[in-house]
């Protein structure tokens, strides 16, 4: 948008620097502009001074804006004049335009045509520290209230499911089972195999010093079944499936799909959350069992490959060390982890705002709260099991 001033000296001022001078006399202000006003031209100080000068005028006085030798111009000039115009409107003085190109004046008029909407509540007021703490506390309380509310809705949906009254599509359940279970096998295999290897390496260095290398089998077996397989699988699934749940439901929220269900009288929690929760609570323990075996295999590889333990001896030692109780603990834990990941993912998704950024936030916070939940619950399990002596 590079109009040219209808000045006869256009060519002469083509490359002239933009200039602005504000002169005060008898309570009047005269602003003179000249030169080429294009983006990137440095006139900031002169502009601020001019706006400052204009703001000192009071009603009986008048403001003149005079353009002489004005070269090419773009929005830079319009933005400056708009500031002058707003300032003048604020103090209730009208501006006399002289020699200012018609196009510039029309753009300024267009930009001032719709007054700034008041009462939109978006002030730049600063918030004090105490207010921030208070807002944070209220938000935390609200967050807790919503979680409890959602837990209640999920419980009711589960009750409806048990009574066979829940409204959901079996295809959705089966598809979610496939997505969360079978399709997670490659990543779960990789992670747990490596965890098995790492555990065996750590054990090997320590135990070989005491000539007790065979106890690597105990270490790997117990650590995997009681802790690592369950926790690592859950974390992988949190990043994979929990995030997917939050993103799916968040997008549905933005697309009014959840509203469409609600108005049809289909509870969204039954239709959307229930299949996901069931699928994950069902698949997580299975992934755990699978992960255990892959991890044990990793330990076995290190045992016989690096420590020269006999294959049969290693297997016998593992079977002896790991009891059914250890498996049961891991199994129960991972079912709980599955429910936690699905709950967090679905809750964040259902509460997501209706924008792309909101879906991103929902996804992030689903993964973060899943992982925190997993670790906290694992710690609780350890404490309780320790007290019970299992």
């Amino acid at each position, binding site marked *: 948008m590079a109009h040219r001033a209808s000045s006869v000296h256009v060519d002469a001022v083509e490359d002239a620097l933009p200039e602005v001078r504000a002169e005060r006399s008898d309570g009047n202000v005269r602003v003179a502009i000249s030169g080429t006003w294009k983006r990137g031209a440095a006139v900031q100080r002169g502009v601020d001074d001019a706006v400052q000068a204009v703001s000192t005028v009071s009603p009986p006085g008048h403001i003149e804006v005079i353009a002489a030798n004005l070269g090419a111009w773009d929005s830079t000039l319009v933005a400056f004049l708009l500031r002058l115009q707003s300032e003048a409107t604020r103090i209730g003085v009208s501006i006399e335009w002289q020699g200012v190109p018609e196009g510039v004046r029309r753009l300024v008029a267009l930009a001032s045509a719709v007054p700034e909407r008041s009462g939109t*509540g978006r002030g730049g007021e600063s918030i004090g520290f105490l207010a921030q703490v208070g807002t944070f506390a209220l938000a935390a309380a609200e967050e807790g209230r919503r979680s409890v509310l959602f837990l209640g809705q999920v419980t009711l949906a589960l009750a409806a499911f048990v009574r066979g009254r829940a*409204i959901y*599509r079996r295809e*959705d359940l089966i*598809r979610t089972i496939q997505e969360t279970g079978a399709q997670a096998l490659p990543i779960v295999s990789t992670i747990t195999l490596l965890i098995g290897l790492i555990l065996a390496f750590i054990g090997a260095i320590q135990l070989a010093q005491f000539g007790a290398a065979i106890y690597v089998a105990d270490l790997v077996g117990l650590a995997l079944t009681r802790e690592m397989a369950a926790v690592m699988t859950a974390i992988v699934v949190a990043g994979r499936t929990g995030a997917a749940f939050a993103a799916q439901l968040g*997008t*549905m929220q933005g*697309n*009014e*799909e959840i*509203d*469409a*269900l*609600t*108005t*049809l*009288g*289909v509870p969204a929690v039954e239709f959307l959350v229930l299949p996901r929760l069931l699928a994950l609570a069902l698949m997580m323990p299975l992934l755990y069992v699978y992960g255990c075996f892959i991890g044990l295999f990793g330990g076995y590889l290190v045992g016989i490959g690096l420590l020269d333990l006999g294959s049969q001896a290693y297997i016998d030692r593992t079977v002896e060390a790991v009891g059914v109780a250890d498996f049961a603990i891991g199994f129960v834990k991972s079912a709980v982890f599955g429910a936690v990941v699905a709950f967090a993912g679905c809750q964040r998704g259902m509460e997501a705002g209706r924008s792309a950024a909101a879906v991103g936030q929902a996804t992030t916070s689903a993964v973060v709260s899943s992982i925190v939940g997993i670790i906290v619950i694992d710690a609780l399990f350890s404490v309780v099991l320790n007290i019970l002596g299992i």
Partner: protein
Amino acid sequence: MGNPVPRIAVRNLTMRFGNYLVQRDVSFEVAPGSVFVIMGDSGCGKSTLLRHMVGLVHPAAGDVLYDGESFWDTDDERRTVMSRRFGILFQSGALWSSMSLAENVALPLAQYTTLSPREIDELVSLKLALVGLRGFEEYFPSEISGGMRKRAGLARAMALDPDILFFDEPSAGLDPLSSRRLDELILELRDSLGTTVVVVTHELASIFAIADDSIFLDAEQRTLIAHGPPLSLLRDCPQAKVRSFLARGEPVSAA
């Protein structure tokens, strides 16, 4: 409104989000079998009003009555039963993305009728054909264009032959011809099935083509400022803003 019991009566409805007042004291009535248009400038709360009327948002004050029965002064269960009379076309169609078009239209039928799968299939094909989507039964929402999604959404809204249809900006994003076909379909639904239609829109061509009656919500005064058939509002609404809105800002010659 000469009718003793209006199909829909909105009474002193006040809408807020937290402390933010959207609209206050909105009251109007919709006669059975009419096409009613809710208009107003952007951000005035037209869609929000619709969401209050269909039960998605609880009003801060006031009530909505359907055939004289209170919609908000009752429990959730009754509200669900009442809302079975509604068909709603959301702004973007709001099709369930994990289901094919046929499954989308079939869900309300499977939910609230005892029809056999075969009968449901037939009805689904009919509804899709009515909106010009014959043969797209097995497509998923992500595989079709925005305008087609909107039409499929309409097929779903009509699935249960509702006696009240709500449209949220039906012609937004449609080309002029599709938009016009949609208007014709709306009039056809009114004339052949006696459906009451509530449309949120600011497409002037549509407004004049379909509306029997209309209201205008104002973003600045935050309330309803005009009520009447759009043509008579254009001629002699006391509010200059409404006249100028309906004339697309052109100067209106006094009639």
